[in-house]
């Protein structure tokens, strides 16, 4: 508003009856001919129902996408069987017809040719089903390459920007300048950072009485390593939970599936790194960090060259 620009904000407010609800406020400046702001127009909309529905939908989506990854073999088999049964049925019917047509007196060659054509088409249909299935479940060969963790962290934070804003997260990045690159699968490392950020978001979900501070930090570590930390001001965890945090399927989220941290840890370990969690020393919340060996420093190399 200080800059005189229109603004959209979603926020909670206490209604006349004491109930907190989500509102959307849009304010726009009204200017005179000289361009001076004469007044501000505001529109306040109660979006509480909408927010509840959106939240519920998003939760379902998250549950569904986790669940879909672990779709039961039985359900999968049934789908595959169904998809392939249809063209197979066509093939069988057409081939039976073909034989009968050729056995007729005189043979119905035209008809037989048509059934053969349909048979080929149905076989291709079945083949397409298999191709689609393969594509769906293909483990794409990971690509390893030099990865700049700062760049990756920025990219993930940019991707989550809307969500962070919506949840009123105060996100801050303290990224080490000249952070040496690591060698690995950029997509997988993105997944890990995304997982940590989403967990932080989740941990601060119910938080109202303090700022929702989120810090993403990168730094060098002894032993030619780099470390990335995601620190939140959320509910934190106690020592008893610490052991279980990284177990597959452990979750404190109701209805969540908790595979994120276990998978993240295995990705980091495949990159010859470690992933761990520490409760915050000052204040509530926790910090999740991973460290990875980095590629030889360009600086270091020129330094060794010199002498």
């Amino acid at each position, binding site marked *: 508003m200080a800059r005189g620009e229109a603004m959209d904000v979603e926020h909670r407010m206490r209604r006349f009856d004491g109930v907190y609800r989500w509102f959307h406020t849009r304010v726009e400046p009204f200017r005179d001919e000289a361009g001076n702001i004469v007044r501000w127009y505001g529109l306040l909309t109660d979006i509480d129902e909408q927010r509840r529905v959106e939240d519920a939908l998003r939760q379902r989506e998250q549950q569904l996408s986790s669940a879909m990854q672990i779709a039961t073999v039985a359900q999968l088999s*049934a789908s595959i069987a169904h998809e392939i049964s*249809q063209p197979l049925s*066509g093939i069988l019917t057409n081939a039976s017809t073909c034989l009968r047509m050729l056995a007729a007196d005189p043979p119905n060659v035209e008809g037989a040719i048509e059934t053969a054509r349909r048979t080929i088409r149905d076989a291709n249909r079945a083949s397409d089903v298999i191709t689609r299935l393969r594509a769906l479940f293909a483990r794409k060969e990971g690509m390893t390459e030099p990865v700049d963790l700062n760049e990756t962290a920025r990219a993930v934070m940019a991707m989550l920007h809307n969500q962070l804003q919506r949840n009123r997260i105060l996100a801050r990045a303290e990224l080490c300048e000249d952070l040496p690159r690591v060698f690995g699968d950029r997509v997988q490392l993105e997944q890990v950072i995304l997982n940590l950020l989403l967990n932080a978001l989740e941990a601060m979900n119910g938080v109202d009485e303090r700022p929702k501070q989120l810090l993403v930090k990168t730094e060098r570590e002894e032993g030619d390593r780099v470390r990335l930390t995601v620190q939140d001001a959320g509910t934190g965890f106690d020592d008893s939970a610490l052991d279980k945090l990284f177990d597959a399927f452990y979750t404190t989220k109701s209805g969540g599936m908790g595979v994120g941290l276990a998978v993240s840890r295995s990705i980091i370990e495949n990159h010859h790194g470690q992933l761990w969690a520490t409760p915050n020393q000052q204040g509530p919340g926790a910090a999740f960090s991973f460290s990875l060996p980095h590629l030889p420093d360009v600086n270091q190399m020129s330094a060794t060259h010199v002498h």
Partner: protein
Amino acid sequence: MSIEAVQTVKPSLVSVVDDDESVRESLPDLLREFGFAAEAFSSAEAFLASDFVDHTRCLILDIAMPGMSGPELQRELAQRRHAFPIVFITAHKDEAMRRHLLDHGAVECLFKPFNETALLAALHSALRVN
């Protein structure tokens, strides 16, 4: 040599209702090779709206279809006092469903892909009943 062969017996009409295009394309031809007349419909609604309902001697019916399902069509036809026998066909292998349909008057329920022997047997069953 006979000059002409008069067809004194009209081939029985077997109607096929299935939303799967390859069934609608392939099954009628096989039925005609068996000696039947055949018509195909992409939906129960299309069948009900056609002129062929009254002339149908036997119905080959898909179970799961968008819109009115096979079993729903079965009920509707019963309500309209159509007594022709029904052979269900389906890609979903479900024995319980098959049992249920047979108990409710279906002549047979074939699982896709079915061979022509199974189909012929079902048709003979159906038309014997009729």
